[in-house]
């Protein structure tokens, strides 16, 4: 709200008199429940927020209109009146055939985009038969070692018609190459493919910890993908700059916002540094936020993020195209907020978090399933999670107007606060020489571990109540059904890998792998050589071995 000076003076006067009279009298009868109220990030909250509390309060400069700078109200002018967010449920477990079945189930029940979870060996660059893969094949995601597995994973799914998100980072260039190869075998050229590759290594070192080579070469390969997609895959999002894992590891909303934006800036810096025009790739960068419990702070986070990104891209990188300034995002409800106790309550948590993401203006959403503190979700639990989104979309009415919380003193004030506090952290990271340096020094890692420990202490001292955990406990109910991943998956995957290796042209594989190695050593873009290698049925582990050989292996220092 832009208030005139007289209006503000009148508001200030009214507030002073309300504070002296009604508020003071009421506090005598009934003191505040807590000495201080603050957001989950620790921002102190006053009794009421009004126009005088807000520092900036310049409506046109800071809030504006959807689809117009600084995009606080949304990246598109029509938002959900034009198109609802994409309901994208993350799935992947067991064999490629198991996950293919789940994909088809989800498509039949109304998901509008696929989202692939890969198993740990695939994420870390090990084939199913590697000793590090023991016990992990197909456990936390789908098992893939070679192009043969990708062919089975997307069998019968027309890749020209769906968009696919792939949550994979250290080995992201290999996964993208395999996807391209499957699509081309289906007759769909790579230029027609739509989807998202997570491909964000900085947050791996910060939070998710699935890595392969040291941060420098890893970021370089992230940018190889960005460069390749700018040239050959105009509909693909080559990176999903992810706050999700940073938050789940224990960061506050302000830290999530700051570290994620700083990661995005680092990728842009790397790409610009190798001579790319910022407007040639920036419009395909996408983001991924967590949606946690503190409802208004989460809404404010989405709004602040769009404004920060637009301002930074314009001012720091001199981006000129409108699309280069837009922060488009996926969101996922907070897995870490779910409880094993009274698991049905998780449905309610997910609904509130999903609503916050929608009120924050997300472009795509995954809602978690109620059973995820036990195992990967069952079909029934996933269906409830998807139905939750459909209820928000089609019954709650929140889709009918753009950015309905704009103009709320509290939400606008919080949006300002989030931006200010996150920018302070970004300035600190700039002073360290950027996010790559900060990560190498362990700065965000330490900050997050501190926040995680503080949260746990607040739960244990009951300063923070978690329903069913440290408050309102009830006797344990009957256990809920959980998904079991077939223990035979590993053996079957190893056997398939053996057959692939027996039937391929070994000399062609060796030549292709040598091509990958040459590109890695010369600092050239690795994407085309990787595509050639996967088409020759060179495996994910074999290609990863090349990178481990050239760049070395990154190890955790075990600090706590």
């Amino acid at each position, binding site marked *: 709200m832009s208030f005139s000076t007289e209006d503000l003076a009148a508001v200030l006067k009214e507030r002073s008199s309300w504070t002296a009279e009604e508020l003071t009298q009421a506090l005598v009868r009934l003191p505040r429940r807590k000495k201080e109220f603050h957001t989950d990030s620790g921002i102190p909250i006053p009794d009421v927020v009004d126009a005088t509390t807000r520092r900036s309060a310049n409506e046109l400069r800071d809030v504006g209109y959807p689809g117009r700078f600084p995009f606080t109200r949304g990246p598109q002018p029509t938002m959900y009146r034009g198109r609802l967010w994409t309901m994208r449920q993350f799935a992947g477990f067991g064999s490629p055939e198991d996950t293919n079945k789940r994909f088809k189930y989800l498509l039949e029940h109304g998901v509008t985009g696929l989202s692939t979870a890969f198993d740990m060996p695939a994420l870390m660059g090990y084939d199913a038969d590697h000793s*590090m893969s023991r016990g992990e094949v197909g456990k936390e995601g789908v098992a893939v070692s070679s192009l043969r597995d990708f062919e089975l994973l997307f069998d019968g799914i027309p890749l020209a018609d769906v968009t696919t998100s792939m949550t994979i980072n250290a080995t992201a260039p290999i996964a993208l190459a395999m996807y391209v190869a499957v699509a081309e075998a289906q007759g769909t050229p790579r230029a027609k493919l739509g989807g998202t590759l997570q491909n964000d290594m900085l947050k791996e070192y910060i939070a998710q910890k699935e890595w392969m080579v040291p941060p420098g070469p890893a970021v370089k390969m992230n940018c190889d993908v960005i460069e390749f997609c700018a040239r050959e895959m105009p509909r693909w999002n080559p990176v999903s700059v992810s706050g999700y894992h940073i938050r789940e590891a224990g960061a506050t909303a302000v830290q999530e916002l700051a570290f994620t934006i700083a990661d995005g800036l680092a990728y842009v810096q790397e790409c610009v540094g190798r001579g790319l025009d910022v407007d040639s790739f920036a419009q395909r960068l996408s983001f991924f936020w967590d949606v946690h419990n503190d409802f208004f702070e989460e809404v404010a986070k989405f709004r602040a993020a769009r404004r920060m990104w637009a301002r930074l891209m314009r001012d720091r990188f001199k981006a000129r195209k409108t699309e280069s300034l837009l922060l488009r995002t996926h969101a996922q409800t907070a897995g870490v907020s779910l409880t094993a106790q009274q698991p049905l309550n998780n449905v309610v948590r997910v609904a509130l978090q999903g609503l916050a993401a929608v009120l924050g203006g997300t472009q795509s959403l995954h809602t978690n399933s109620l059973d995820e503190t036990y195992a990967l979700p069952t079909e029934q639990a996933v269906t409830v999670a998807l139905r939750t989104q459909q209820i928000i979309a089609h019954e709650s009415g929140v889709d009918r107007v753009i950015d309905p919380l704009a103009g709320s003193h509290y939400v606008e004030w919080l949006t300002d606060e989030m931006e200010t506090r996150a920018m302070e952290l970004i300035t600190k990271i700039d002073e360290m020489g950027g996010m790559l340096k900060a990560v190498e020094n362990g700065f965000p890692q330490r900050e997050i571990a501190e926040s995680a420990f503080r949260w746990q202490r607040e739960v244990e001292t009951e300063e923070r109540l978690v329903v069913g955990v440290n408050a309102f406990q009830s006797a344990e109910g009957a256990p809920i059904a959980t998904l079991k991943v077939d223990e035979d998956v590993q053996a079957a995957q190893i056997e398939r890998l053996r057959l692939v290796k027996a039937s391929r042209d070994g000399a062609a594989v060796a030549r292709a792998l040598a091509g990958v190695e040459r590109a890695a050593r010369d600092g050239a873009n690795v994407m085309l050589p990787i595509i050639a290698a996967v088409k020759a049925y060179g495996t994910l582990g074999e290609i990863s071995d090349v990178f481990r050989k050239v760049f070395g292996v990154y190890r955790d220092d075990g600090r706590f």
Partner: protein
Amino acid sequence: MGTVNRQLRILVAKPGLDGHDRGAKIIARALRDAGIEVVYTGLHQTPEMIVATAIQEDVDAVGLSILSGAHMTIFPAVIELLAAQKASDIKVFGGGIIPQDDVPKLKAKGVAELFLPGTSTQTTVEWIRANVKPRGAAA
């Protein structure tokens, strides 16, 4: 504590490829704050690496944090390797994303205790105080 026993020494270990180390780090820190000596392996350890560290560091118990679903493979592997090293007196306990059904099966395989999501760190500290004794000390 009024006993002649030396301080307890616990290895907090993060086996396998799973990178979820929030819980392991919180537990490591809570145990240290409670006056227990803690060695933390860091991420991505094989059972062989964990057992080698446990013996080298002469710990009294090993706590495994597993959120990857690989618990049915990794707990028994660590227990068997400890036995092969004649170190079965090193207690193995753990926590993470472990379905209820698997808890009795793991206990039958020799896991001393499992702490599931929502457990307070204090509960773990108390369990260690009550159930883990310095190796070689008179019981």
